[in-house]
């Protein structure tokens, strides 16, 4: 089953990490310079290798960074931010090397850390202003933008309150405000919806989408919540065990799955399957009488009805199946590196 699925999907959405010499390219926007360009990036903590020979050009407006706990998502972000030195290889952000041009890169990026990170005994506006100034904004501009950023994230009324008195949701928004106060070109968001209740999560997602749609900044969103990534990102990078398991354009992927069908049958399925194989369709049994089929070029749905009639099989249900992000993620986790 998996083999029949892999062939079709691999073409459109992912290249295997087993052939790392080939940089992974997104299908869209190849003409634009990559946001992040990974050149065999490896990171080790002592003897432990956390990131292993990552290669690829990430070009999306919003790139989702997915992976199970310990896959290396946060380490990748930290390395790109210059917190950890690469053990081998390097990476570029907007064409600037993360080790040689670290300061230049840092003036272009904003970072919202995963953990609670604040400067104690400060009001939100003072905190965001300080962060703006540290990014190079003159004091007056930093103060002005601190107010604007706090209003933008919805903390306008609470901006003079001390950060210690903020709820978790408010703290997340304050962290977002400090990440955007200096108007960065690229924003790293590390688990931005962590610990948020549904309304707060929706608000955060809305803000991220607004920033993305403004076209003023690109976003790298690290999360283990697939729904968040699905709602915000146009490209995803799935890490597994420090290696790239999948890198794909979600929209392209969705389009490419237009020929992916789900069937429920009654009758002699064996004969029907043989007939399908003769027709050149790849198929997979997905439990009970359910089938997943990839229609080949030139094969139409009516051909399936004809086949079912010939083989005396009832088609109880037929629907186009679009791979959800969850499917992509689970397949990436089931399979070897890069194999879908």
């Amino acid at each position: 089953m998996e083999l029949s699925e892999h062939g079709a999907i691999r073409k459109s959405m992912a290249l295997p990490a087993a052939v790392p010499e080939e940089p992974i390219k997104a299908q869209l926007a190849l003409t634009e310079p990559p946001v992040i360009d990974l050149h065999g990036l490896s990171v080790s903590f002592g003897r432990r290798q956390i990131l292993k020979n990552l290669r690829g050009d990430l070009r999306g407006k919003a790139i989702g960074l997915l992976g199970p706990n310990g896959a290396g998502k946060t380490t990748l972000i930290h390395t790109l931010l210059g917190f950890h030195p690469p053990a081998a290889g390097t990476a570029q952000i907007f064409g600037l090397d993360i080790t040689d041009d670290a300061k230049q890169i840092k003036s272009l990026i904003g970072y919202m850390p995963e953990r609670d990170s604040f400067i104690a005994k400060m009001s939100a506006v003072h905190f965001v202003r300080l962060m703006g100034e540290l990014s190079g904004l003159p004091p007056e501009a930093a103060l002005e933008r601190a107010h604007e950023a706090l209003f933008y994230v919805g903390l306008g009324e609470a901006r003079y309150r001390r950060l210690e008195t903020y709820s978790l949701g408010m703290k997340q928004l304050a962290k977002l405000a400090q990440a955007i106060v200096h108007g960065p070109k690229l924003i790293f968001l590390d688990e931005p919806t962590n610990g948020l209740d549904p309304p707060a999560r929706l608000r955060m997602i809305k803000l991220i989408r607004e920033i993305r749609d403004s076209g003023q900044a690109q976003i790298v969103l690290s999360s283990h919540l697939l729904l968040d990534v699905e709602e915000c990102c146009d490209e995803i990078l799935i890490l597994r065990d420090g290696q790239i398991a999948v890198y794909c354009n979600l929209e392209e992927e969705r389009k490419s799955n237009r020929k992916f069908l789900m069937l429920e049958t009654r009758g002699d399925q064996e004969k029907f399957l043989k007939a399908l194989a003769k027709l050149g369709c790849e198929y997979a049994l997905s439990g009970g009488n359910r089938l997943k089929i990839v229609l080949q070029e030139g094969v139409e749905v009516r051909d399936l009805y004809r086949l079912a009639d010939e083989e005396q099989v009832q088609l109880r249900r037929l629907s186009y199946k679009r791979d959800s992000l969850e499917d992509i993620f689970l397949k990436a986790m089931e399979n070897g590196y890069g194999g879908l």
Partner: protein
Amino acid sequence: MAVYEQAYKRYAGKLTPEWSRFLIIPRHAYRAVFNSKLFTAFFVICFIPLLVEAILIYLHHNFTALIAMKINVRDLFPVDGSFFQTFVNIQGGFAFFVALLLGPPLVSRDLRNNALPLYLCRPFSRTEYVMGKMSVILILLSAITWIPQLLLFLFQSYLEGFTWFRTNLWIASAIFIGSVVWILLLALLSQTISALVKWRIVASAALLGLFFIPSVLGEFINIVFQTRWGNIISLGALMKNVTAGLFGTFDRVSGTLRITDFDDNIVREVLLIEPPLWCSWAVLFVICAICLAVLHWKVKAYEVVR
């Protein structure tokens, strides 16, 4: 990103020069520091000895005032190297207490609140961070040590004349070097302890202990072994020797220890010889190097668990 627009917009205005960004930290820190009335009051008290120093210098040159106050000019201290050295030492004491109040929370608070990634994800290096934090202390301590002392030196030169200024220029350099070494040591030690200990009270206690425990231990070594080499572990004694060296009052023979029998007859005389000056400088240098190494190790965006 105007408030009313509610939209994300990139910043396209001017940026501040990179070299000056470390000064953002002290500027913001002073807002919090001088919010404390207690600290402000103590900081004002730090200027009282300087006021006394200024009055003494003034009196030396104002016979009318001396006559009015019925003070004989011979009763006043001469305004020379020793005069300035005394006040450098007094201000050094005040500087210690200012550092004790100010230093411990500077880095520890950021470590406790995971604030370092926020600093270091910006065009702001670890060196700039340490420089910024240290300058919080250095600027304030400079304001109560070498800056006013040098102004008073100039005041004395103005009253005494250019010849005095020219022949005593070494006093100015002694004031500057002695004070700067002391406040640099205080800043480094307080930052290092602050980086190692996350709780302010513990950090303050550790800083206090670092000055007093080795001093007591050093004195104990001096008494037991009838030597002055115990001073090598006492920060206070080290600085005293260094300052004395700078002001030209350092004497390796700091005293004589007379050992007597029960009838008070002198059995033996032991000359108490201070460690050579270069030893004091070397120990201070080693302490500063250790502090820098610890700061280099601790001031990181994230602690890596290997």
